[in-house]
């Protein structure tokens, strides 16, 4: 609500709060404190208060809020990058499994939105935003089209997931990673700030 008040104040053309009129060092201090507090889930603020140096930070300043939103974007990107890295690590792995040709099961790329949806742009269909790397068995369990190609004896001991669960499992790691990162950052931004004296 505080941020909303400030926003309306800015758009009405009035002067920003006094704390935003400080010198550049103050502004940068507030900005990086907001950024760091979001990434550390408030731990850096707790340390500042422990050291007795928290008075230099103005939690109500626009620069602090800007730092918080930057931290939120940062955690979202970090989550997405972690998911992308997971795909890179898994790609090309194989393990023994008699259900697969010549007894080797490979990590396969599963499409979140099926590749047969040609109305989706080609760059998207085979991008990290639409692919999740997973073992062939898991792919078959969460994708009914992949399940069709499995052997009968394997199907008898593995019942596929319901469609809704399959879609969740197929969510690309970069997308789910970004989602987790955004939730983390959002929760950090929503943390209550210490009351000013």
């Amino acid at each position, binding site marked *: 609500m505080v941020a909303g008040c400030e926003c309306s104040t800015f758009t009405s053309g009035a002067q920003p709060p006094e704390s935003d009129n400080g010198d550049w060092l103050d502004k940068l201090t507030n900005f990086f404190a907001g950024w760091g507090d979001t990434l550390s889930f408030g731990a850096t603020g707790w340390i500042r208060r422990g050291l007795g140096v928290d008075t230099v930070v103005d939690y109500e300043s626009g620069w602090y809020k800007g730092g918080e939103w930057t931290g939120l974007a940062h955690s979202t990107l970090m989550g997405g990058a972690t998911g992308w890295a997971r795909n890179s690590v898994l790609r090309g792995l194989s393990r*023994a*499994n*008699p*259900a697969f*040709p*010549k*007894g*080797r099961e*490979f990590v*396969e790329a599963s*499409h979140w939105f*099926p*590749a*047969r949806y040609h109305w989706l742009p080609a760059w998207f269909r085979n991008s990290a935003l639409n692919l999740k790397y997973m073992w062939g068995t898991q792919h078959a369990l969460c*994708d*009914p*089209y*992949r*399940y*069709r*190609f499995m*052997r*009968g*004896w394997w*199907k*008898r001991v593995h*019942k*596929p997931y319901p469609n809704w669960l399959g879609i969740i499992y197929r969510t690309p790691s970069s997308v789910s990673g970004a989602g987790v990162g955004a939730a983390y950052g959002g929760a950090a931004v929503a943390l209550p700030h210490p009351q000013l004296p």
Partner: protein
Amino acid sequence: MWLLFKVLRRRSRFAPLERALLQALPAYLPEEARIILVQQIEAVNSVYRDREIGEVNLYFSKKNPPPRFPNQRLEARWCTVYYRVPSKIDLFKVHLYLVNGYLFTLAFGKIYRQVASESEIHIERVVFHADVMQPVPESLPLPVREERAASSLDHLPRWCIDVGRQWPIEQVSVPLLPEEFHQRLQEIETTLPADYLELVQVCEGFRIADAVVWGLTGIRVVYLPSGAYYILAERGGGYLGVREGQQDGQVYYLHHEYSEPLTHFSTFAEALEYLLRRSDLP
């Protein structure tokens, strides 16, 4: 029979057509097999349906599994039931498959969606492909069959040696004995491509680069809306298959992302080269 009737009526997990089929089928079985089948149907606790291709798989409780048929072959096509339903004039068929002595798959084909709600079925005839009461011990899946030394590549057909110059051929399996060869061939209800038949007479499949060419024992059936396909080779998500009932020996390229074949070839050699050259696989 009355018990089976009660079980099928009570359990709503069966669609009307499935229920009608499973009620009518035991009449075509000898007493012992009928008892086991009824117990298996009674023990079904969930059903998986792929309505697009008409594949219905039956799952039993793992805690209290029903008795198995003495024929416990890993996978076997048990029988084909030819039937009619009142609302259609055509004669339809459904294939029933066993896995390790359990009835597992009812393969209706794409007609399933149109007839699944039919509660009346008239069986014209049942063709049995395997005797469920003939004891066959449970077999485990074999990842790699017996391999032959690389020198055996000389025995391969000319087209195969040509392909082998571009991609390495490994794990060449020994061919089937004539009796098993003919038995397996009879189980496949289609015309296999001539060059593939030439191959399986001298070997039971091999690995080529990152693809696998199956021998007759490794062939499996995959159902798609356009029909059943016997899978002869695969690489990653790409497969080469021949359609059930075809006479021309055409080889189809299938991909698990698509519900229908993407292209087809007149020889297996051409299709295999196409599969190996695909840059989007595996």
